[in-house]
């Protein structure tokens, strides 16, 4: 069974702090996506990475795809309450699977 493990599972931080969440698997992915989901809504795509070692930035969010395309990280600089939500990675191999999720709460 393919798994996409995300860590940490829960994270509660103060506004202005930095954080990193991870998405790890034993499988090699042709591409990997990151989504954010706010309470009571569906997930919304943040970014897609396709090349090993690729780094993409979206304002205060930095996404990195591992060199071996088995893992990815999301780094948030100076977190704000609006960053609160569930962060999900989704990997494409012969199947498409979502990660276990990281629930982030940013306290004002």
């Amino acid at each position, binding site marked *: 069974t393919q798994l996409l493990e995300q860590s940490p599972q829960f994270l509660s931080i103060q506004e202005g702090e930095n954080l990193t969440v991870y998405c790890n698997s034993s499988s090699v992915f042709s591409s990997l996506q990151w989504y954010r989901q706010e309470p*009571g*809504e*569906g*997930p*919304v*795509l943040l970014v897609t990475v396709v090349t090993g070692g690729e780094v993409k930035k979206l304002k205060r969010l930095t996404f990195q795809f591992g060199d071996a395309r088995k893992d990815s990280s999301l780094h948030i600089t100076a977190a704000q309450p609006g960053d609160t939500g569930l962060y999900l990675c989704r990997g*494409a191999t012969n199947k498409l699977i*979502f990660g276990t*999720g990281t629930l982030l709460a940013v306290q004002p």
Partner: protein
Amino acid sequence: SQTIHQWPATLVQPVGSPLSLECTVEGTSNPNLYWYRQAAGRGLQLLFYSVGIGQISSEVPQNLSASRPQDRQFILSSKKLLLSDSGFYLCAWSATGAGEQYFGPGTRLTVT
């Protein structure tokens, strides 16, 4: 532009009752369609996906079934609900299998 509709938004059903959740997509043709279930604060469990009318793939053996009677309509059903069917159900579409998925607003199902 494309939009995805899902209803109802919330549903409270007794154990043993039937279920029908509907999802429709506008503004695109021949989409890939998906049903997911999500436990609170956790990832998405893929239940069913469809690449075309009448074509349904089941990912998890369970008490649920899906149908695609029209190109842009996807229905999730159950003949008899179980307590364990409670959860947040999300419908999604994509243009290609590995492409971005666009999600509906979800249905919160509580089985009592």
